[in-house]
């Protein structure tokens, strides 16, 4: 293992796990966020040799048996994915958050996600997605009636309140 190989290079170029994206290479954009021993870190500033003996979680670990995870479904549901380039990093930051704090406040979500930049969405839909996944409300398709309708309306109110308050 060459000492100068970064974790992101190792993941993408050696393991062909190309879910993790490079945005800046200097730790400022968060696109390359992975979980290192459960902690969100930017893989561009970790050397592959440093993670000997550690666990690394990447976005490829989210879906199981072809089923999207709760977070992935929430991101799709709220429209939090536009170009998609920031999305794996966003998901991993959110995953790190929900593992250490399953019921985060809005402020806690913002602080946890503040290291992930997005040029497309304006962030509201992303925060709504994290809120949605945290509330463990199953994203559903169309109905506005019955039990699933209640869930759907609750979700829509969540998105709307995000819009009213702004992402702050």
């Amino acid at each position: 293992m060459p000492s100068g190989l970064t974790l992101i290079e190792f993941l993408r170029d050696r393991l062909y796990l190309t879910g993790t994206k490079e945005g800046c290479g200097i730790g400022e954009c968060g696109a390359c966020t992975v979980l290192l021993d459960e902690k969100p870190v930017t893989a561009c500033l970790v050397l592959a040799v440093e993670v000997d003996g550690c666990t690394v979680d990447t976005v490829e670990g989210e879906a199981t048996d072809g089923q999207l995870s709760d977070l992935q479904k929430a991101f799709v549901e709220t429209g939090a994915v536009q170009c998609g380039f920031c999305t794996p990093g966003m998901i991993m930051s959110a995953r790190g958050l929900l593992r250490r704090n399953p019921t985060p406040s809005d402020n806690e979500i913002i602080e946890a996600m503040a290291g992930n930049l997005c040029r497309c969405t304006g962030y509201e839909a992303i925060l709504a997605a994290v809120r949605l996944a945290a509330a463990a409300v199953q994203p559903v398709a169309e109905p506005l009636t019955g039990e699933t309708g209640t869930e759907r309306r609750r979700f829509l109110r969540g998105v709307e309140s995000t819009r009213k308050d702004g992402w702050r």
Partner: protein
Amino acid sequence: MLGRFDYQRPSTLPEAGRLLAGNDGPAAILAGGTDLLVDIRGRRHDPRILVDIKRIDALRRLNVDSAGALTIGAAVPLNEMIERAAIRRTLPGLVQAAESIATYQLRNRATAVGNLCNGSPAADMAPILLALGAHLVAWSQRGERTMPLSSLFVGVKKTALAPDEIAAELRVPAPEPGLRSRFLKQQRLRGHDLAVASAAGTYAPTTGVLRLAVGSCAPTPLLLEPIEVGRSSKAVVEEKAVRAVQAAMQPISDTRASADYRRTVLPVLVKRLVSDLLAEGGAP
């Protein structure tokens, strides 16, 4: 590939000391790597060996003793410090400084000691640790020495550490009962940014002493002379503090702000600090 360097991961301080004193080319200490690896990538630094200190148990210690005195090992990530309840309770200014640095992900790697050793006049951990009277313990094969933190900074990105020395730990003395501490950082934007100007202060109601330190306004972070508050009014103390910072600062214009802006904003930060620290019935 960031570069062609060797990587060593010693498990003891003596091993690390040998590597740093060795003849295999310039060595650099790797803790969080959030400054070092960026510098290597940007070709501002070209070490032959990286000495990873994160597996040295002695450097991972974050200890608050029964009196509240703090030991921060060189390999302790900022988030670990931020999340320690005892530190949040007794030294909120220290937590404020750490929380202002970079992003959550970077704070899982970056360290307080590393922030100081980078030697930037804008180092966010410097003002509060200066005001708290912190000391730095430096270790090498030649022995161990302890210095007041103010002695560490000798110039812009220059520290008093020898090439074979490891900054091993920070020691913060037990705070006086009811000590109040604050850190204020002026940035261009909310979120990840360097300090355009910064100020930290502590006030001990039991002794009536106010300690202030400022950053990003001189070649090094500056610890100002302590101010005896006594029975002086807040206005008088503010006046003293502003005059002290104006006399000490040597701001420059750079990509982030003009010298004029810094000259204007530092007194504002200092006044806010004094006001907050002296507030009646204030919590730590």
